[in-house]
């Protein structure tokens, strides 16, 4: 299981094994301040990272950080 959350360091502390860093707590898979297109592209990047995490052999709690930028919203 890939675990997508904005609170990824906490997820690691709680021993989740495949943690994917999302954007923000109220909207982990996107950024409402972006245009609909950019928002969707951001979501796609996060999901690609999540799919990569699923395919990765990990030994314990591991953080996967998608290469994204987003606003502070």
């Amino acid at each position, binding site marked *: *299981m*890939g*675990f*997508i*959350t*904005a*609170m990824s360091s906490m*997820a690691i502390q*709680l*021993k*989740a*094994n495949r943690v994917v860093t*999302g954007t923000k*707590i*109220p*909207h*982990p*898979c*996107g950024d*409402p301040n972006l245009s609909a297109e950019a*928002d*969707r592209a951001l*979501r*796609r990047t*996060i*999901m*690609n990272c*999540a*799919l990569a995490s*699923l*395919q*990765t*052999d*990990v*030994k*314990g709690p591991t953080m996967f950080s998608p290469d994204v930028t987003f606003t502070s919203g």
Partner: protein
Amino acid sequence: MSKVRVMHYVNQFFAGIGGEEKADVPAGFLEGAVGPGKRLQALLGDSAEIVVTVYCGDNYFSNHVDQTLALILKIARERDIKLVAAGPAFASGRYGFVCAEASHSVSGALGLGCVTAMHPENPGVEMYKQYKDRTVYAFPTTEVVSGMEEALSKMAQCISKLAAGSIMGPPTLEGYIPRGFRRDEVKSESGAVRAVHMLLDKISGRSFFTEIPVEQLEAIPVAPPVTDLKSACLALITTSGVIPPGNPDGFRGYQDSKWGKYSIQKLDSMLDAEWDVIHGGYNTAFMKKNPNYGVPLDVCREIEKESVFASLYPSFYVTPGARGLLSVMHRLGREIALDMKENGVDGALLVST
């Protein structure tokens, strides 16, 4: 003053009925103290009296949980019991399980003080920690019966204290296994002063006690990676509280104890249907506007169409994660995982707010 009336629970072995061959013996009771209860009574002296001993076969209990607990409650009521002792169970898992269940039941139904003892790795300890009953105290014992005297002595001290109406102090003082409560207390020094002292102790290599112990979580077994994504069925889970309009299954939005599963079979995006969001722990305005933030269906369909993975499971799983109790969330996770396995799901993506 009349002595405080105590019920003692022991398994069939300690009740003198028999060993493994008698593990199916039904629950019953004997007058007064029996087996280890006799020594417990001696240690209690005049502070309390074991008036009845309830016993049950170790195997019988797991097949007759409700009946056995009902009998224990009935006897406790009829005999005007004020305190319950259970065990010590040492490392015996089945015995420890009954001690934890019986204590939980008596504490919940009658509010009575319960004192038990078992080895810290007995599965009963896990239940004790999960139940977190304010009137139940479990003391650590050795793995084997050789620690009987020490275990009974700890139990007797606690029972005597409760019988006298005294308030139990924290686990570090009283020796019982921590249940995870934090209690306010008045200190003469401010938090800042205490923190500095603690830091200085730590730097100097002296021993110190934290005032806020962090719960130690066990490592979660690592699932093997999905090796053939192209033929995998993936499912989406969310703790964001995205649910069908009108909240048909009655989620509360905080401390929920159930999960739901809703169809997305005919949708290409969460925006293709109406959804509500119920969650007491974050600002749900963005999620209401676009539930793809919590159930990223739009891009998952896109990726599915590109045949990166074989198929998206036709429903998503949800529970509002706000203020979720760890023990409850463990159960929900197990149930969801089981449902996924039954439905041939190979991998899951969980989005958490």
